[in-house]
């Protein structure tokens, strides 16, 4: 009986220690399934642009950081429930998300694109190379009209709760049959299997998949930016408040903004972006 008691006490104490010892470290949540932004290597370690950038930013802030994994569809709820203090998961800064959380300044930006399998009827659409939905104008309108016609009745696959899903749901390209997946990996699998007529995601997500899998995935139509696609990718942080934790969150936002400024000036962000994306996606 005594042994049992000691054993029980031991568990309680160790639980208590594990809670308190994390109090001063910054926990950063990432998905680990959206290469080249963030992903995992063969042995399950988190790698990618944002994992390395997070470590650099923490070094600048002189803070101790741990990076934790979280499924994409629970990312913002997990932040709100204080499972971690910041999101670095290729999350674009959008007005929709800013209703619930706040963002640091953007650290990187890249365009979204439709992808199809080679030989698809959607290849060779007559659209400009890229459209910015915030700027608008005749070209954008014409391109959206072309897309509406081409995508009518087609199944377009996206990862759930993304800017890409928001764009398709917005009706800018008419009524398409939107199919949502938990991860981008699953979107890629079903694009290759032919269940999806097209898929919409960050252009690099497709080029990365085509390169690694050898599957004939090709980008079609214009690249998208602005509007529903947000204003670059930033660090997601809880909205600050007047209580102790709220003040801490507000300070964290300031610290991240300063660290991003510094990292940008020192060329760290562009260096990492070129390494992972193949071009300078920093901002």
């Amino acid at each position: 009986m005594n042994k049992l008691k000691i054993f029980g006490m031991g568990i309680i104490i160790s639980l208590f220690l594990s809670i308190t010892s994390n109090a001063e470290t910054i926990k950063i949540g990432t998905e680990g399934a959206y290469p080249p932004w963030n992903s995992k290597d063969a042995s399950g370690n988190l790698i990618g642009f944002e994992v390395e950038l997070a470590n650099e930013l923490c070094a600048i802030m002189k803070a101790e950081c741990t990076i934790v994994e979280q499924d994409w569809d629970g990312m913002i709820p997990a932040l709100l429930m204080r499972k971690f203090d910041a999101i670095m998961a290729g999350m674009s800064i959008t007005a929709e998300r800013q209703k619930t959380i706040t963002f640091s300044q953007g650290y990187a930006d890249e365009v979204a694109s439709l992808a199809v399998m080679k030989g698809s009827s959607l290849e060779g659409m007559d659209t400009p190379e890229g459209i910015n939905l915030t700027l608008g104008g005749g070209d954008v309108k014409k391109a959206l009209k072309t897309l509406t016609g081409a995508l009518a009745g087609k199944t377009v696959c996206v990862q759930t709760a993304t800017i890409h899903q928001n764009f398709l749901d917005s009706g800018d390209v008419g009524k398409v049959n939107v199919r949502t997946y938990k991860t981008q990996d699953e979107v890629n699998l079903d694009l290759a299997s032919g269940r999806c007529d097209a898929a919409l995601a960050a252009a690099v997500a497709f080029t990365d998949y085509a390169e690694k899998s050898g599957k004939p995935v090709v980008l079609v139509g214009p690249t998208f930016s602005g509007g529903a696609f947000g204003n670059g990718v930033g660090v997601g942080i809880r909205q600050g408040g007047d209580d102790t934790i709220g003040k801490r969150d507000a300070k964290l936002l300031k610290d991240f903004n300063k660290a991003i400024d510094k990292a940008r000036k020192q060329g760290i962000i562009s260096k990492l972006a070129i390494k992972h994306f193949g071009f300078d996606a920093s901002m």
Partner: protein
Amino acid sequence: MDLDLMINSIPKLLSATVITLKLLSASLFFGLFVGLLFAILRMNKNIFINKFAYGYSYVFRGTPLLVQIFIIYFGLGQIEYLRSTFLWVILKEPYWCAIIAFTLNTGAYTSEILRSAFQTIKPGIIEAGKSLGISNKIIFYKIQIPIAIRQSLPAYGNEIILMMKGTSLASTVTLMDLTGVAKYIISTTFKPIEVFIVAGGIYLFMTFLIHNLIKYLEKKYSF
């Protein structure tokens, strides 16, 4: 607690419940036939047929339903040869992939439930039938099957409830069932607790109905 969100999400979740019920009824319907077939095969004296039926129920009861649905949906979709056959017409649709996975899964459990029900029938009852000059076929259809169904009602009721909850995995293969729509609402409102409480309540209500239906049937067919 955001009560407005909870109330607003009810109609959307209820219309998604229709898909959940469709998946459930289709897989239970096909699963009952699969289960009965394999229960009969399990009682066959031929060792190969017997082992085959045993192997089926062993594999499908011994692996998670999520793994089964992933193998059928994402796994089979990767086989290029399959995509050129008529099977792809069915396997292309997430709806049918889910029904196939659920059917095979519930079929395995149902076969075990029915087999044990058959085995609880006292030999005396069958012998009594034989001594009255009733043929084996009629003994099977008119005596063994009705008794087995009555015997298996409580266990089968549990299986229906388990399967009903299992249909929530359909959302992992893009189907917008009750769980799928709940996740969709969460993805735009970022409020999982409210939405999952409503969705959980709907599941609970379905369990309540199934539970009472089985209880009623048990009373009606008691002897």
